[in-house]
């Protein structure tokens, strides 16, 4: 049997932000539980979930914070941005107002996180094509102008949900690899855990190699 270490070596903190009702909680739930919540109450507070993913053979534990989107809590939710390595900024493609508010969410995300924080734009509810109020192209342009990624996501069907989280993780990991993200900085949003030592392994002849057992 394979003896690959099953543990994670990094923890990334993510925040999910955006107007109320755009699907932030559903996004988290879909990612952690692979289930769609048709009737999701408004988040009045901050919830979070975790999941372990793999990027370039490294296991990474994502710690995802889902914040309340209601305007009246904005001042309080701002205080949860600190130390986020990734920010998923969600809008609802059927409601233009949620798209129009993106710049204000983006400003908060930029001001309250470190310069390396990876921000991903997510246009949700792609299943409601008939009610589309924001075109993909303009959102993509907005994302590009702001140096970010754009993903269209259908949380209901689980489409692209994994990608949203993975893309951000890949980018963060890349930032770690090329040294642009300093892990020792207090607000990097990343914690590194050196894997437990794999002692006691005696060599055998020929060295049996267990391969292709990614997990």
């Amino acid at each position, binding site marked *: 049997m394979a003896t690959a270490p099953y543990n994670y070596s990094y*923890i990334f903190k993510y925040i999910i932000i955006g107007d109320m009702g755009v699907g932030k909680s559903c996004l988290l739930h879909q990612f952690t539980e692979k289930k769609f919540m048709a009737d999701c109450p408004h988040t*009045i507070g901050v919830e979070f979930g975790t999941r372990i993913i793999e990027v370039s053979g490294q296991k990474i534990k994502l710690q995802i914070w889902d914040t309340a989107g209601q305007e009246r809590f904005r001042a309080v939710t701002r*205080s949860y941005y600190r130390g986020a390595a990734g920010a998923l900024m969600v809008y609802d493609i059927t409601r233009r107002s949620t798209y129009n508010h993106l710049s204000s969410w983006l400003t908060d995300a930029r001001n309250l996180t470190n310069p390396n924080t990876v921000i991903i734009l997510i246009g949700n509810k792609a299943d409601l094509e008939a009610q589309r109020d924001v075109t993909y192209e303009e959102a993509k342009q907005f994302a590009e102008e702001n140096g970010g990624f754009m993903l269209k996501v259908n949380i209901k069907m689980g489409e692209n949900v994994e990608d949203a989280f993975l893309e951000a993780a890949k980018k963060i990991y890349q930032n770690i690899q090329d040294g642009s993200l300093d892990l020792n900085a207090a607000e990097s949003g990343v914690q590194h855990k050196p894997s*437990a030592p794999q002692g006691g392994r005696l060599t055998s002849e020929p060295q049996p190699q*267990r391969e292709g057992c990614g997990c």
Partner: protein
Amino acid sequence: MFLQEVARACPGFDPATKDPEFLWLSPYRCTEPQPESTTPRGWNSAPGTWPGCASIGGGGSNFGSSRPNGKGLPVKESSRGQDKPENLFSRQPKSKSEITDMVRSSTITVSDKAHILSMQKFGLRDTIVKSHLVQKEEDYTYIQNFRFFVGTYNVNGQSPKECLRPWLSCDIQAPDVYCVGFQELDLSKEAFFFHDTPREEEWFKAVTQGLHSDAKYAKVKLIRLVGIMLLLYVKQEHAAYISEVEAETVGTGIMGRMGNKGGVAIRFQFHNTSICIVNSHLAAHTEEYERRNQDYKDICSRMQFCQVDPSLPPLTISRHDVILWLGDLNYRIEELDVEKVKKLIEEKAFETLYAYDQLKIQVAAKTIFEGFTEGELTFQPTYKYDTGSDNWDTSEKCRAPAWCDRILWKGNNINQLSYQSHMALKTSDHKPVSSVFDIGVKVINEELYRKTLEEIVRSLDKMENANIPSVSLSKREFCFQNVKYMQLQVESFKIHNGQVPCQFEFINKPDEKSYCKQWLNANPSRGFLLPDSDIEIELELFVNKTTATKLNSGEDKIEDILVLHLDRGKDYFLSVSGNYLPSCFGSPIHTLCYMREPILDLPPEVISELTLMPIKTEDDGSRLESPMEIPKELWMMVDYLYQNAVQQEDLFQQPGLRVEFEQIRDCLDTGMIDNLCILQTFSHSVAEALLLFLESLPEPVICNSAYYNCLECSGNYTASKQVISTLPTFHKNVFNYLMAFLQELLKNSAKNHLDENILASIFGSLLLRNPAGNQKHEMTEKKKAQEFIHQFLCNPL
């Protein structure tokens, strides 16, 4: 003096008029509804006619002549010092005065949370994943048969002289795995004592050359204990699926340790099946079967392989999926004499002979090899022959033939294909034995394995998510309506805990000193909850002098968001909203002077504007309406006391009643002044309200800027009066007005037992407040403040 000036300034002022019909008072009168709109509205209808001091001046008393009568209650300085106005309410049973100096111990803020959450048990997760993987093995493995060749050969100390193919390559098909064991590899003393022998290399070569020629093999392991050697080969293509190879030896010879007898073993993982091969050479001689049993048991108990994870206990032989045991077990045929044995062999009556086989008998008695199987013996005994021949031993000892060399197995999915001896090999006094097996090995389906592993990791993630503490709240929005000054309002809610024990706490938002606004308090603000348990939290709202002014001005509102934090868990926001009814309590003196109408009749913008208006030395006439000389509310309280309580014993020393204070406050703020009398309010409550009013002034009567001047000239009345004359007009008016009133009280000291000292000590700390704020007055400062007031009580104003 002051009152005379007031009288002069107020046309129509007649101190003698006992019951003046002042229209401006109408909003303060609690009478039957009058025809609306015709009623002149309040204060602005009679500008400049504020006759507030009429009653005090009434009766033509001589303000200046009042002297202390020395009959006041004896008051100890020390106790008076502690009897600060803040504590007036504290004597009431339902005191909430602690609210004013709440201890806010919250130290965590929301942004610390990331750190708290990251503490994770580390090694545990690996172990859990592994054990889940073992449990779910069937989900991602399938059984595939592999051909194992198992051979055993006691070579009697000889070097290889013949090709071993007839033994090792007896099968048409090339086996996948070779397990080849030897005994008595070298009988020399050197081998015994120095553990080194050229035979190892010789026989290794011979075996390697004898392997099936249809396949290429890789040696996995060679292990030797003196003359006992075990070799493990696999087909090259399987090498990648062999892991965790360990080899060990156990000597059971002389002294129970030496290596002339005992066993060697190799264990390994083939795909997902753990396999252990044992080669043993047990004690010799027919009668020694119990020694052989003992050797077997020793090997079983002492053979221990270390594991990859050093924290796990070592593996024993029995803890393997497949065990193959070969060797010269040395069990003999008993009870029958040599001739009888040879005769049965000749007749090929192996079954009959087998009944006398010691191994068979011991296994049947369950003394050894429990759970093992051996194939049917269809070949003649492999011991003992004259070397180089197929003839039975012709030596002196003439040993009886025996099935010394055996192969047994234990485990599932093992199918023996052959079990035979090889007469063609004549090098030794033993014949080699072989057995070929089809062994079902658990092979991993990569795709299913990945899926299973993912499921396990996911379920652990889910478990972790499910273990995040979570509660439900009976209420998350709290509306406090019509909040009044110093009137406690309580809203409660229930926290119901889920299945994870948790610690909760209201935490500070960043850059805030406490978890909520100063006028609010949660009780309790932190605690611990067992699974499925409840706790009731009370939100207590109490506006006091510290918070009232900003609520009046609108700079602060009854609005707040509380963050209820669960340790390692979610955060919940609680919204607090409501409205505050502005009050004269907490309003600045000059603001009140500009309010001709009751404060609750004014639109919020006006209250806000007047509250924020900077203090002026003189009225500059910039406002449409001219201000009153002193706040009407002050006049109302003083007037009431003057009318009803100048002779009241212990005035200002007896606490009032909370309900009465609330009525008084409402009367003042709504202008329903007559209620004060109708409600039969006790003088003590009004007196206390007056003190609370003075205490609630954001800027004390003697302005902060004049505080130290006053202390300095506290022995010099002329200088003191000079300082007072520099105060802003309204403050000066209030000061003079109060002093006049107090002097009036002192005239009645025979009845009310007040004296200058008592009044100076009560009012000293209210009119003169240390600008630094909450710090307790130093004793000397306090004394000087009293002295300062004292001068005004015993000198003509």
